[in-house]
């Protein structure tokens, strides 16, 4: 009896293997076939769309649902980080799977544009978006912006009787030694924004001198950009240097010791963008989506799902949680400059900090 059990088990397994080995040739053949048929000049209702989203999961899902409801385009979404999306669309460029890249920092879009991975599209709705928040050729268009600042743990600072830092210089306060966290610029775009901001605010020498002094204050350099906000929220550090909307996010999730503060000298910002992927399988639907993503309603959707950035559409109301930040002094942040000098500035940072 037992022998038969094993025998049948092995047979089943071999069967399974031959089936999936068969799949490898038969599945793809059957799969892309229905799509072109669907696309051929039919009413909007039959359009479908796949999105790679660099937003948070809930926000991305809600946006897809809302878009589908409004336009009838069947929409599905895969969420990844900005860098992961860039890597994935590059690996997939021979056989593009998704049509829209929705959310994630503009510098990843700029890198993608340089690699020829994006399709230019100037949406009629982009006219409203201010110059500095979009690509002049339409390879990407900004949908939100986040300001760099200090996410502090108010409770810890109060316990130690330290003032909440209000300027870049305040961070060099000896009382904060070993209590500041910023991500590693070699891995995090957020941390690189800090370097690029300081270089543009002052000049390169002064910025590097400052970063060297700041290094003495740093507890650790985590790998991801939002980790400092989380660490400040949990009391693992007193100050995290990162995008302040991450601070709001953790505050809203219950880390109520968080206090936000923006440097008075001025600070840099990131832009979150939307763009169409080159050789998009559903180009028509993708254009409809980009138009939609730039509307006031679509942009205001994020604040219900934990995205507290400011919005690029001047008609859209920013999240009320971000109200306190609206007077933040911004520098004239040059995306182009930041992108071109990234490798060099990060290398220089390695040199001065010996990290």
């Amino acid at each position: 009896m037992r022998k038969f059990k094993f025998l049948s088990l092995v047979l089943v397994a071999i069967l399974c293997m031959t089936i999936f080995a068969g799949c490898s040739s038969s599945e793809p053949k059957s799969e892309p076939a229905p799509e072109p048929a669907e696309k051929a000049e039919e009413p909007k209702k039959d359009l479908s769309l796949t999105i790679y989203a660099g937003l948070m999961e809930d926000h991305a899902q809600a946006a897809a649902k809302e878009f589908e409801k409004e336009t009838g385009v069947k929409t599905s979404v895969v969420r990844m980080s900005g860098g992961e999306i860039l890597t994935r669309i590059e690996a997939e460029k021979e056989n593009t799977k998704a049509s829209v890249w929705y959310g994630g920092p503009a510098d990843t879009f700029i890198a993608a544009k340089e690699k020829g991975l994006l399709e230019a599209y100037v949406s009629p709705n982009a006219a409203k978006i201010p110059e500095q928040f979009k690509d002049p050729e339409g390879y990407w268009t900004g949908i939100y912006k986040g300001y760099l600042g200090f996410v502090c743990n108010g409770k810890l600072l109060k316990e130690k009787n330290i003032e909440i830092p209000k300027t870049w210089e305040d961070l060099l306060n000896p009382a904060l030694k070993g209590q500041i966290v910023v991500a590693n610029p070699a891995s995090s775009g957020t941390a690189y924004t800090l370097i690029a901001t300081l270089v543009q605010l002052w000049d390169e020498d002064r910025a590097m001198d400052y970063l060297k002094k700041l290094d003495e204050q740093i507890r650790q350099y985590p790998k991801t950009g939002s980790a400092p906000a989380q660490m400040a929220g949990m009391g693992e550090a007193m100050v995290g240097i990162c995008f302040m909307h991450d601070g709001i996010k953790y505050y809203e999730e219950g880390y109520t010791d968080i206090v936000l503060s923006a440097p008075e000298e001025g600070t840099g910002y990131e832009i979150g963008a939307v763009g169409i992927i080159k050789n998009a399988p559903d180009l028509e639907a993708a254009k409809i989506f980009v138009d939609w993503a730039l509307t006031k309603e679509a942009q205001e959707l994020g604040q219900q799902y934990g995205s507290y950035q400011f919005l690029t559409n001047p008609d859209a109301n920013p999240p009320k949680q971000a109200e306190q930040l609206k007077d933040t002094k911004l520098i004239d942040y040059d995306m182009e400059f930041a992108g071109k000098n990234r490798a060099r500035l990060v290398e220089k940072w390695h040199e001065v900090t010996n990290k």
Partner: protein
Amino acid sequence: MHFLKRQKGCKSMVVRTKLLSDFKDMKKILRDPILLTTIIFVIIILLTFIIYPLYSVLNESFVENGRFTTSSYIRIFSNRDFQNTLKNTLILGVVVGVLSTAIGFIFAYANVYLDTGLAKLFDIVSILPIVSPPFVLGLSAILLFGQQGIITKRLLGIQNANIYGFKGLVMVQVMTFFPVAYLVLKGLLLNMDPALEEASRNMGASTSKTFLKVTLPLMTPGIANAFLLVFIEAVADFANPMLIGGNYSTLATQIYLQAIGNYDMQGGSTIAVILLSLSILLFVVEKYLVEKRSYITVTGKSSRKRELITDHRIVLPIKFICLGVTIFVISFYILVPIGGLFKTWGVNFSLTLNHFKYVFNIGLKPFTDTIFLSAVATPITGILSMIIAFLIQRKKFIGRSFVEFASLLAMAVPGTVLGIGYILAYNTKPLLLTGTAAIIIIAFIMRSLPVGVRSGVAALAQIDPSIEEAAQDLGANTFQVFTSITLPLIRPAFFSGLVYSFVRSMTAVSAVIFLISARHNLLTTQIMAQADAGRFGVACAYSTILIFIVYAAVYIMNFALTKMQVGQQEII
């Protein structure tokens, strides 16, 4: 002179006889169509799903604008950051490997040899770390030992405790990987014939002498295997160094950061190739040093059950160590379900069921999808790995070392690299697989294959081939020998392979991040996304349910195993 000449002649004779026997072996295989088909089938599978994607990565590291170049290697090697990272990685691998193997061995020994009365508990505890997604351990470590840690600040009153870095990383990795060593060593110990040790005892050796002179030497290949497995896994580990490594960087994280964080795919691939070479080097060293010695302990069905050691002088200290580790592990995991009940982990400790409600509001699709994909991958992995182990250990054929090498390679590859390799390789015809369920299942299989193969090989190494030869002489064909002799004999290894493969598929993160499509929603990516959004409560709720599902599956498989053993005894 004369003597030297003769020796030379001898050598060439040896070479000739070796060639001759190789030739004879091949001829034998050609006469056995079942075996031949299996070998070809296995080689094709390994070439397509392991070598080809890795070749794509290698290709990426050497080709720039369509031309061959080594500039990327020169750039990476001259980078000081990289040199530190390389050193870090090696130190980490050795330390974690030694500690995990030691703890795994103590646990396996306690469970198989000692009458501790706690075998069940130790068994559960030692599977715990592999059934949970890795970031959970890291987060628990921060909560227990961080600046605001329950142990460090509340209990010990330490200010400015710092868990991030080498020490924290070693702690978390040892907890993550000692179960791997445990599974390998336990399978071996279970297969060891008690008669050998009893003979030693009967001849007057003490328990400790028996242990040192009989058990330990017999276990050496197994221990070396376990160390190798842990070393490679620790070096390829991604989630833990990412979370808790602090400034301590390792090659596996570096690959990800270079490729994903710096948008430098070529640099990332280069580091991946370097890491891969390191693991391959280790693999070769292990082969030459350890596998020369082989031990055969099962020469038939072992006569009877082992008599457990009850001597307090031996049982108590080991029990004490195991209990210590157990308490440590449990204190980490208890935070998972509890974390799912607290309002805000670390800040607001009021109780709530909201996180679990949220999980069920999102729906069951992540659960059903993950279980389905893992359940398909598990039996295929189990059978395939035993077939490969059988071929490696028992058959001689051209390409044998290739099969052995390739089947273990996937383990040395960090998940991210394998994932990148998979999209690079399977995004064009004829193997257009991206976006299908098949690619996720294949990734699952290839990721857990190495552990299955290794435990199968280790188990087979202890079984005298004469039993199989006897069956063969009596007229059984290869298929019959494999199914009715080999597989039943190595059943413990087979089942631990099944369990491991299921668990690993359910909790895989890094390999699948590039493979998921909108159609399949996996639990682990869901957990990562929730943690990313700062909803640790929800992430914990997901993890709790995931751990329960996996435990249920492990329990059912164990149940089936005991049922089958009973059946066997009845028949014989």
